[in-house]
Structures are given as C-alpha cells and as structure tokens.
C-alpha cells in the first residue's frame, strides 16, 4: 500500500566496488512513473514487474551506486503526470525518470523535462514524433515506435505471404493511426493494396458492427489494437464465422493479453521487437525469471520497463556511476549499446530511438499455453525503416488521413 522504495543493495556489494566512498554511499534516485489506477493499470503493473526484475538482477546497485526507485502513480492522466514529475524531480530529488506509460503522458511532460533538463527513459510510450519531428534532447526510448515493427510486417505480408488485398481495422487513436499507416506504406510499396480502412473508437463496446463491414474479397485483415481490445476483436471475429487470416499489430496479441485468449488467437501473424518465445539465452533467462516471479510470460510493458532499467545501467556504467554531468550522462544514454538482451542486440540512433531486431511472430499453442513463435527476423530495424531519416522526416507524421502510397 505504501510507496515502494527498493533498497536492495547490500553493504558488502557497496564495499566491493572500487569507487570513492562518497559516491558509494550516496544513492542515485530514479523516479518511476507508472499507472496504478484506472484503465491503464494492467500495463502499469507489468511495468512495475519488469523494473523490479531488473533491479533484483542488479541487486539494486548499478556501476557501484545504490539505486533508489521512487514510484509514482500518474493515474493515466496527463495533468497528474506533470505533477508527479514535479514531485519526483523537485521534492524527492530524482535525477533520472523512467516512464511514463502512455504517449499523451510523455507529451504532457515534454516541456517540463526540457526546462529541468531531466533525463527520461521511456519504457512504453510509442508515439512516433517523440523521437522524430519533435525530438527532445533529454528523452530516449527503450521500445520501438508505433510503426517501427509494422513496416517489416507490411513487407512480409506482400512478399512472403503474397497477399494482394488487405482490410485494416484499427483503434481510432494516434497509436492505431501510426501503426496502420506504417503497415500500409510498406505493404503497398511491395505491390499490395489496402482496400479498406475501418477505425473503431478506442472505447468501442463491441466489434460486430465493424467485423460485418469487412470486404469479403480481401486476402487478410490487419487488426491493430491496443489494451484489451485485441481480446474482444479476435473473440468476436471467430464467432462471426470469419475465415480470412488475421494479421496483428504487436499489441493485438501481446503476451500481456495473450494469456487471456483462447484458440481464436491461434494462427495470428504479427510483428514486434520482442517475443517471449525468442530462442536466445538472454531471453530464456529473462522469461524464466518472469515466469518464476509472476507466473506469466513477459510482454510489451514488462520487457519495456526491464529494458529501460538496463539502459540506465548501461549508461551509468559508461559514466562510472557519476551522473553529476547531466550532458555527459545523456550522451552515454544515447550511446547505449547492449549486445545481449531479451530484445537481442540494441543500440540507439541519433534521435534517441533504439534500432531493434523485429520478429515476425505467429501465435501457436505450446505446452497448453499460447506463444508468439518467431518465424522470421528482420535484423537491426530502424524507426525510419529503409527510407533514411531525411526522406522519412520530410513527410508529416502518420495519421488517420495520411495515405503514404499516394
């Protein structure tokens, strides 16, 4: 119930480190903005789990410094998010922030982190422009952008699956718009055609109205949903007797909700910068730890917060735990280079955005549980796909109305 402060370091560990006594004694305060109440609470909880796992792994010490995590509940409301950022930075003296969860929350504190020059590592907010047209020098992201994983999926759908006509159904908000536009862009460049786009309200009560509008002549349906909407959509899709294959966005069949789905999800092909089923030693170790602690597979939010924490560790090691020079620390943060992680190898581009391996994943049932089996990997995918920053940034940000193919 009471605020979590994670003091996990031991005096022995602190004594072992070859640092000045002053630095070793003084802990580094990290503000963590999560969501514990309201509609986004599920993602917030998964973020807390991912962060705790990473802190446990480091036993609360990074580059010889004790790390003190101070957690704040933004309630998923932008106005509260700003107050919480002030609370963490001004009152509690946090030197680095991890969070917040939603893109609109990150945008709400954009000005504030510039003013206070507070380094922020984003564990989940995916809005494209945070690292594109409105880059913030104090901001890096530990996850992909909305479209980053879906450019490859568009190409894959056209080239490998040989789909010609696709209908898109997506949540009618920025995240859905950006995913859909990114997918459409590469799909159409490779000879496919998006013949229909359906935008359902984020709080749509049910999807029957939309499912029954789907053009029967399409080869497949690309469904881009966030939160719990993927559960609803796939369940109803099956009950409407729909046979067309479904392509999903990363969050449509995210591990965080996949555990709640049934056979209706089997066969859905999606793409993402992460899958709990990725067969690498680093990921296996991570998944084992999550399963042991929380008896669930890690998904978008868990791995995002875990990696945000690893970014922090990597940057702190570069500056040997000395964060007093903020500019140097920020430079280190943008210079994060991790060769082995649940994501695979990660490094950042000059905009503060990770370059990530993107997996094409297929939902399969294995040992009685659903998983996103990796069927193809696109290595080192940039947020700009193959276009390069200059060409990419010339056009406006992906939106509902912007049709990149024209």
């Amino acid at each position, binding site marked *: 119930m009471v605020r979590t402060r994670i003091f996990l370091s031991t005096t022995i560990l602190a004594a072992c480190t070859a640092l000045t006594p002053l630095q070793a004694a003084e802990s580094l305060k990290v503000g963590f903005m999560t969501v514990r109440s309201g*509609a986004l609470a599920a993602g917030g909880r998964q973020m807390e789990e991912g962060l705790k796992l990473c802190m446990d792994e480091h036993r609360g010490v990074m580059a010889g410094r004790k790390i003190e995590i101070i957690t704040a509940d933004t309630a998923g409301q932008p106005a509260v998010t700003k107050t919480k950022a002030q609370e963490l930075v001004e009152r509690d003296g946090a030197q680095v922030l991890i969070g917040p969860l939603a893109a609109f929350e990150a945008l709400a504190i954009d000005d504030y982190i510039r003013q206070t020059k507070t380094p922020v590592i984003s564990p989940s907010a995916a809005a494209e422009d945070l690292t594109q047209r409105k880059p913030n020098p104090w901001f890096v992201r530990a996850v992909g952008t909305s479209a980053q994983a879906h450019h490859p999926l568009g190409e894959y759908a056209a080239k490998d699956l040989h789909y010609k006509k696709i209908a898109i159904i997506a949540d009618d908000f920025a995240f859905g718009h950006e995913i859909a536009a990114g997918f459409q862009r590469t799909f159409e460049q490779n000879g496919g055609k998006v013949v229909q786009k359906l935008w359902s309200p984020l709080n*749509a009560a049910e999807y*029957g109205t939309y499912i029954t509008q789907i053009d029967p002549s399409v080869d497949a349906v690309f469904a881009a949903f966030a939160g719990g909407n993927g559960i609803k959509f796939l369940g*109803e899709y099956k*009950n409407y*007797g729909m046979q067309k294959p479904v392509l999903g966005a990363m969050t449509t069949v995210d591990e965080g909700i996949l555990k709640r789905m049934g056979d209706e999800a089997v066969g859905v092909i999606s793409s993402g910068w992460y899958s709990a089923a990725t067969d690498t030693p680093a990921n296996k170790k991570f998944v084992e730890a999550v399963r042991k602690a929380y008896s669930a597979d890690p998904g978008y939010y868990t791995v995002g917060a875990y990696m945000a924490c690893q970014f922090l560790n990597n940057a702190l090691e570069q500056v040997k735990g000395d964060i007093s020079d903020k500019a140097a620390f920020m430079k280190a943060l943008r210079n994060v280079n991790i060769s082995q992680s649940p994501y695979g190898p990660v490094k950042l581009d000059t905009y503060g955005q990770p370059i990530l391996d993107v997996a094409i994943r297929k939902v399969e049932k294995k040992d009685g549980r659903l998983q996103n089996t990796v069927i193809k990997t696109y290595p080192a995918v940039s947020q700009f796909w193959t276009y390069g920053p200059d060409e990419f940034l010339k056009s406006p940000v992906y939106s509902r109305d912007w049709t990149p193919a024209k």
Partner: protein
Amino acid sequence: MNFWIIQGLNGLAFGSLLFILASGFSLIFGLMRIVNLSHGAYFMLGAYVGLSAIEAGVNFWIAILIGGGAICILGTVIERFILRRLNGQPLAQVLVTLGIAFIIADTCVWIWTGDPRPVPMPRELTGAFRVSNLAFPIYRLFVIGVAFALAAALWFLLERSRLGAMIRAGVDDLPMARAMGIRTSLLFSAVFCLGSALAGAGGVLAGPILSVYPGLDSDMLPLALVVVILGGVGSLLGAFVGSLIIGFIYSYGQALFPDLAYVILFLPMVLVLTLRPTGLFGRQAI
C-alpha cells in the same frame, strides 16, 4: 441488402445488451427516483464475480446467478444502510452513488489486477449461425432471446403480479401507496435488489461479448442513461424500445457515419431531451 440485415441484427443484439443493462436502472429510477450512478459499476462487478466463479469451475449459467445474487446483496446493503438514510433527498442519493461507483471501480482494479479479461462463452453457444451467405454469432442470437424473455417476464411481473401492482402504485403515488398499507420499505429493498441483480447478471451475460476491464463501468453507465432518457423514465416499454433504437443507431450510425462514431449516441440524447423532455414513453419529465 445484406448490409441492412446484418447491421440490423447487430443493432438488435447490442440493443438487447443495453436493455439488460438499462432495465434494472429504469426500474430503480422509476420507483425510487434514484439515479443510480453506480449501475455501471454494478454491471462491471457482476461480470468480475461471474468470471471468478467460472474460473473456480462453476458452470456459466450458475455463474450468471452468482453474479446477479452477489450484486443483489450488495445493492440491498447499500440501499438499506446508505440510500435509506438519505430518503427524500434525491440529489444526495445521486451523489452518494457516484462516490460508491468510484469505490467499486478501484476495488475491482485492486482485486482483479486491471488485466482485461474475456468471460468464456458456454461451449454450446460458440460459433456462427449461417443462412445462405449470412453468418451471425449464435451467442448474440441467444442474447437477443434473453432480452425479449426478460422484457416479457418483467412485463408480467409489473403488470400481472401482486408485487407489480404494488410497484406501480409506488411509482404513481408513493404516499398514497403507503397509506394503503403497502410496506414500501420492503418493496424498495426488493426493487433495488432486483435492479441490482439485473445489472450483475447482465454483466456476466455480456462478458463474452464486451469482456471485463477497468473502465467498463464508465463506458456502460452513459449508455444506460441514454436509453432511459430516450425511452422515458420508469417506463419498461420505454426502456425496451429505447434500447433497441439506441442499438440500431449504434450499428447503422457507426457503419454509415464513421466520423461520428465517438458522439453517435449522445446527439440523439441531447435532441430528445431538448425537444421532448419526457422521453418517448415517459409520463413525466425527469
């Protein structure tokens, strides 16, 4: 042609869900003049309770009863110990139900962790019913059936039973009903229990379509309000017709005017309220 049939069925199914949600709301509103702003929270809590029952191995049909029963108990307790203290102060009652809605919503996040969760459908009702090239989910046809059966049962209860006669007397003239020797205290508890139970059971029944998630309460409450406003206060027929109209507006409106999807249900509400404040079937303005 297929478009009109299939969207009509969609509208009918959604309207049926709305009726199950709104009938209890309308019943309580009609007799007790309480705008129960916790009704959406009751609906959500019922769905969660039913879900937990199913996960504990209980059969879907029993889970509906458990969900309804649990919310009936909760509603009766709230009515007895909170709302009754505020007797004769409709406004204070409205506000208290708003506070209770906050409490229930956050308690659900606490207990059920905030993960969005589907309520599993009974196996025998999965899949689609096919006629030529039309397919429609069997479960939704079932929900339509339930709503019509419920409407008939409520009609019988209100119009043909002794309890119904007492309720109608209470709706029309409460002091007179009391003077006639009707035990209004017990009557109020019974009605509040029934209205709450309908919300709770409705939540379980709607679970396989809507799933359960934090925020379901505030998504559904305005819909119940819209239905009751449109149909008219305290009128069962009004709630029924209002539900179906809103269901049709929802399905045809979203399909034909996708740009208005976010506001499609509130425009008619404003229109009706400003042009005909009594609603379609109400006898008095709210």
